[in-house]
């Protein structure tokens, strides 16, 4: 079987991120999926072995622009686990605020992209517009709209002052009413229901077999959340709840993400109340990292981030293993997309939020004729959008 590959990517100026999936199809039905990764592999685990412990925090921040707080968080948790260090309380609250702001901005981003893939470009425009004040707030607090460099081993790099707390509160008021509106738009629309309910279903057993985490697991009724199960930062000091759903389809994944947004707002508000009008240490002093090993986890926007570090007492880690949530979430569409139509694949792939929908180029194999042709990501998105159009017209 000879396949023709059009030289469009995996790297291309129009693409968000390079990745490559092969869909094996019988007519319109997907019968198998093959995942090729590595186009974006930068050897960060290896680079980490040649950096100072403190520098690694800022190195892992660059793994992903969207979760740029999640990796430093898990890494610092790992080093602090190795040290047996408890960080100052104020730093815990600040870490929690930044993490939850990040969750909010990423879930807005996801809702926007999901809307776009389904042909609801208004949802896309709105969601991304509502995300902007969050990014501006990040700039006010941390100095950067992305790559915040806020976390350090032993605490945080910058404090949040009362004036910023006031600004944050105002921003949250706006965000909650917008989130409310967006949730209603998304969940009450009959066409969206027709497109998402019972599409790309993932069972509890699939979640276990692939080790899926985060909203993907929680939408299938698997009640796991590192923030509650292995508390760190200030998650055990504030009141919030884990959102789960039972069906495991794309609709439930959307519900989990949208409702998590409200919990995030709740968590940030409580943290702000606790640190307002108070002063306190934000950094515990760390002089040396002794020999040993540590494991750090953080419930990122897409699920559990896992870092394993080992020290021989020198100034750099001797081994640093990083596992991002997409690493275990992405393979689940070996289960969720099989038996579905090509036009639904876009939203199923997007349903796991694979660090953007990084599935730019998909090769379609016809299982009957054994021939293949390359199809670009925009084509797949167009197919998906056309399906929504048809549903709108004919009910």
């Amino acid at each position, binding site marked *: 079987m000879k396949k023709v590959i059009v030289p469009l990517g995996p790297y291309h100026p129009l693409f968000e991120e390079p990745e490559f999936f092969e869909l094996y199809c019988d007519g319109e039905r997907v019968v198998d999926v093959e995942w090729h990764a590595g186009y974006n592999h930068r050897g960060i685990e290896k680079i980490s072995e040649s950096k100072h412990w403190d520098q690694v925090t800022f190195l892992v921040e660059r793994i992903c622009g969207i979760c740029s707080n999640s990796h430093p968080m898990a890494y610092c948790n790992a080093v602090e686990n190795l040290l*047996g260090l408890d960080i100052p309380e104020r730093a815990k609250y600040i870490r929690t605020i930044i993490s939850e702001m990040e969750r909010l901005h990423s879930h807005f981003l996801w809702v926007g992209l999901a809307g776009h893939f389904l042909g609801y470009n208004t949802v896309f425009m709105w969601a991304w517009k509502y995300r902007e004040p969050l990014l501006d707030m990040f700039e006010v607090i941390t100095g950067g709209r992305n790559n915040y460099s806020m976390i350090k081993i032993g605490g945080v790099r910058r404090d949040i002052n009362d004036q910023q707390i006031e600004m944050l509160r105002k921003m949250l008021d706006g965000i909650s009413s917008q989130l409310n509106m967006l949730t209603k738009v998304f969940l009450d629309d009959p066409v969206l229901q027709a497109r998402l309910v019972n599409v790309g279903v993932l069972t509890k057993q699939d979640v276990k077999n692939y080790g899926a985490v985060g909203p993907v697991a929680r939408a299938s009724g698997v009640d796991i959340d590192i923030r509650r*199960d292995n508390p760190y930062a200030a998650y055990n000091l504030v009141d919030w709840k884990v959102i789960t759903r039972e069906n495991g389809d794309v609709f439930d994944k959307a519900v989990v993400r949208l409702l998590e947004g409200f919990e995030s707002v709740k968590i940030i508000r409580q943290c702000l109340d606790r640190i307002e009008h108070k002063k306190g240490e934000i950094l515990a002093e760390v002089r040396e990292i002794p020999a040993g090993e540590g494991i750090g986890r953080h419930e990122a926007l897409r699920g559990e981030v896992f870092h394993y570090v080992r020290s021989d007492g020198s100034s750099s880690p001797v081994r640093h293993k990083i596992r991002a949530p997409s690493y275990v979430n992405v393979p689940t569409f070996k289960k969720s997309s099989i038996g579905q139509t090509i036009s639904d694949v876009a939203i199923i792939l997007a349903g796991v939020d694979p660090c953007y929908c990084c599935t730019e180029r998909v090769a379609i194999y016809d299982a009957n004729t054994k021939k293949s042709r390359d199809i670009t990501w925009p084509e797949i998105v167009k197919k998906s959008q056309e399906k929504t159009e048809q549903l709108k017209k004919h009910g």
Partner: protein
Amino acid sequence: MELKNILIEKLGSKIKEYKEPTNRRIYITIDKDSLAECARIIFKDMDARYIVASGVHNEDSFEVLYHFGFDKQGIVVSLRVYLDKDNPEIESLVWLIPGIEYIERETWELLGIKFLNNPNLKHFLLAEDWPEGNYPVRKNIKGKK
């Protein structure tokens, strides 16, 4: 019963070393021959969640840590297996955990640890024409200082 006691009771003499250096982190060293049995007990019988596996290159050995999450207790249990430095190979766990295929492929191509009976042991992150025997995460390959 505490998780520690259950683990010690179920794994019994297969445990070569038991360490709990910090809160909620357990490291258990086992022989590579008992990996399949221990992993089955932890993953199937005790219903732990597969997290990932970490391969490590030491001066005189290779090491693979299989991390499992006990989410109700918030504990990470890592099964540690030491492998021969000249011929690092170990049985694959794909028959038990389908999702482990990718990390086994990654550990194979980056560290050169061979996973026997992995049905799909081919390049995952590196290019298909990557030179054979060149394992970038091994210690004798130096990163840029």
